[in-house]
């Protein structure tokens, strides 16, 4: 069942949300962004818990934006799980089917089936308040799935769990979602989580979607300085475009003029504000790259797999990684280079 959201708008005194997004049948799309970017509000709009000012929501080709939440057939997993404290595990899971007036025997079978799916077989009579965080999360997922929803919404479902559990549960959520072929919208502020389990990611910022794409596209080819800065580690340097020929451009920065690649189809005019972007991994300690920068090592961090350096050059601080463990003393001068094909130009200046 596909979800199509057309220019959905909602205004608050200090905030405005304006989004369009489509999720294909069986697809898992993640809304990724910092807190306050409007991703949870967007989820609540889709769920019908908030009414939009304008726009359309279609589910399976049918408009649902006038349909009340209780008739939308949407499963929601809440950040705090929202398990009913006065019901046991089985009663929680049976709540949705019960509301649909399924026959008793069918509900019983369904509860059993779901508990098996989330690997909590035999937990029927447990009190939900006595379950661990991970178990509560599984019950919440089972409850949302029980009445066969047409769309599954997950609102930061793992944020209350510890790191280890988060990783194993996200894999399990993905397994179940794929197994059921369920159209899913997943909200998170954790970029690693988004990269790991999504078919596509929609990066949100200030109430708008900045970029939508596969995890690989989002990471490799960020469309804006915000996306480049939010996903993974990055170096951003403000500049002005000197010239652009096809996919090759030149940028003037405070540290000199450098060549860099442009996004396909983007034709900026010379003089436009742009940002030079490259990943720490792309930096080389020789001077074979076209983009050459000299500075002073300000910090050195040993991270086990690699060494991470911060290099100050003028007003800018660059992040570099290296496999070489010795050397790199803070205070030392350091020159590094990046090849032009690893450098990308992005529209506008980096967010402060």
């Amino acid at each position: 069942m596909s979800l199509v959201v057309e220019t959905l708008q909602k205004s608050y005194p200090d905030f405005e949300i304006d989004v369009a997004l489509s999720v294909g049948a069986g697809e898992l799309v993640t809304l990724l962004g910092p807190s306050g970017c409007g991703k949870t509000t967007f989820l609540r709009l889709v769920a019908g818990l908030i009414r939009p000012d304008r726009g359309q929501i279609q589910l399976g080709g049918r408009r649902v934006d006038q349909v009340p939440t209780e008739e939308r057939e949407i499963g929601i997993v809440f950040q705090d799980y929202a398990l009913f404290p006065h019901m046991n595990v089985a009663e929680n899971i049976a709540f949705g089917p019960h509301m649909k007036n399924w026959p008793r025997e069918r509900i019983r079978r369904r509860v059993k089936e779901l508990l098996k799916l989330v690997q909590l077989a035999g937990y029927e009579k447990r009190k939900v308040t006595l379950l661990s965080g991970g178990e509560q999360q599984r019950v919440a997922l089972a409850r949302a799935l029980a009445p066969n929803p047409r769309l599954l919404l997950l609102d930061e479902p793992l944020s209350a769990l510890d790191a280890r559990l988060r990783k194993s549960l996200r894999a399990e959520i993905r397994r179940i979602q794929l197994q059921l072929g369920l159209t899913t919208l997943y909200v998170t502020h954790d970029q690693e989580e988004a990269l790991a389990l999504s078919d596509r990611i929609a990066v949100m910022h200030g109430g708008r979607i900045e970029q939508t794409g596969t995890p690989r596209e989002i990471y490799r080819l960020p469309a804006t300085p915000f996306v480049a800065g939010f996903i993974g580690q990055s170096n951003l340097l403000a500049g002005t475009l000197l010239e652009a020929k096809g996919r090759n451009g030149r940028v003037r920065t405070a540290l000199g003029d450098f060549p860099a690649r442009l996004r396909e189809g983007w034709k900026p005019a010379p003089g436009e504000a742009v940002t030079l972007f490259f990943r720490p991994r792309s930096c080389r300690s020789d001077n074979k790259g076209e983009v050459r920068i000299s500075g002073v090592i300000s910090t050195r961090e040993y991270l086990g797999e690699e060494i991470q350096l911060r290099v100050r050059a003028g007003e800018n601080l660059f992040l570099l990684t290296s496999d070489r463990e010795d050397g790199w003393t803070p205070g030392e001068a350091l020159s590094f280079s990046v090849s032009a094909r690893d450098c990308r130009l992005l529209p506008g200046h980096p967010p402060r």
Partner: protein
Amino acid sequence: MRSPGIWALRGHHLLLLLLILIFLGLFFYYPLITVLHGGIRGTEQRFSVQPLISLLADSYYRRIILFTFTQALLSTVLAVLFGLPGAYLLARFRFPGKRLVRALTTIPFVLPSILVVLGFVLFFGNNGILNRALMSLLHLDEPPLRVLYSLKAILLAHAFYNFPICIRIVSGLWSRINPHLEEAARSLGARGWRLFRRVTLPQIMPGVLASAALIFIFCFMSFAVVLVLGGGPRYATLEVEVYRLAKVGLDLGAASRLAAIGSLLTLLFLYVYIKLQQRASFAETAGAGWELRPLSALFGKAGALAALAVLVYLVLMVVVVLAPMLSVVYFSFLRRFGWAGQTHLSLHWYRMLLGGSLSGVSYLRAIRNSLIYGGLTVLCALPLGTAIAYLTGRKQFFGRHGLETLAMLPMGVSTIILGLGYLKLAPVFRLTGGRAGIVAAHTVIAYPFVIRAVSSMVRKISPSLPEAARSLGANPRRLFFKIELPLLKPGILAGAAFAFAISLGEINATLMLYKPSLISIPVAIYRLISSYNFFAACAMGSLLMLTSLLAFIVIDRIGEGVF
């Protein structure tokens, strides 16, 4: 970012709101305004503050107002001073019997004032248990403590009756403040008195002030304690004087003028209390709780003296609260033959409850009336209080805060004045003269407590619970009955217990509306005390205590932390 849009009131909620407003208007605001109006109406039936001014010019009334204020202030200071150590012990230590001590802090809200009066007379009276014990212990011929029928008696009774409020509010806040703050201060070198004054005190101060304001209001509006223990016009407060003017002097005009002044003052105090309470509830709360230390940790450094002080304090606290109550029970089983004869154990007074009447008081009628009042009060106050708590807590709508204020205002108006309002309306409103009037008054007095009990549950419900239920297909009706109502149940039960206990112990408004056929248990006790029939009063009192105790247990068991 929650939008009020979808929660805006729909049809049946609007109807509910309308019913609430009609009830409050009819049974609280109309009588109150009638009293105020009567107070500021000149002889030419025109509005004028002249009558109020001439009342204030009268030194007799000025003295009453001043006395009311002074006794409330002194009582408050005593109650807070007596309560603070308890708040500290309760917030920071664990010790055997802590549950009992904590439970005792509900007492001021549940224990009928007439029982406090009765217990006080029996225990602290000139011929009371304490004096007799001291006389036989110290071989004295005269009772050493003479507190009855004086300002001392009023202050002591108020302090003993109200200090648990201070313990309750302050210890609640104290245990919620972030322990890291004190740890940080200690790491920066603060300790002892300076640590307390610079770091701890500023944080518990909102609680101290809020509890002081509440105690002050209670003492300012206190009626039965002053009426009986004051023992005469010398120690009349506003409330007592309004009662005398209305019921003895039959001067409703003067009563209204005095009542108007009293109401304006108490509403002002209520405003102060609400402001202070908001500050107390905004105080920082921490995820990490205090690690409760055993009491012995306190003795470690200061040694035996501290141990003794704590022990004396705890014993005194329990004695002061429980001994008067136990005296009531003890005396109810006593019977004396002749004026100076020996007393001996007897069930005489309980047998009397089943039949006879004494000093013109019919026991059985009083019990029956009280049960009817209590039952009907629960039936009225419960839906009213629950509806208000539900609407103000779960719904976002225009005027929500206004409704909250309108609904909490009765807490700031004395029940004597409410009774006076009903009395003045009796000719208009046939209803307010009889039983229905008493039930209406009790409902108005009790429902704010229902609101408090239910609101505490409403606040505990995470907003995502109803949203989850709706996403699973629950329509508003099923959402209410399957999710919201079951989650509110503990609060509703506690509210019912409150309402019943309050109705059963209520004496002020009942006395204002009193007719022999309308007698209730507290009024019967009052009349028996007035005719010096203490043993019979005690039998009646024990019965009242038993019902209060049941309510108290219900509140204690389910009032808090069910989930």
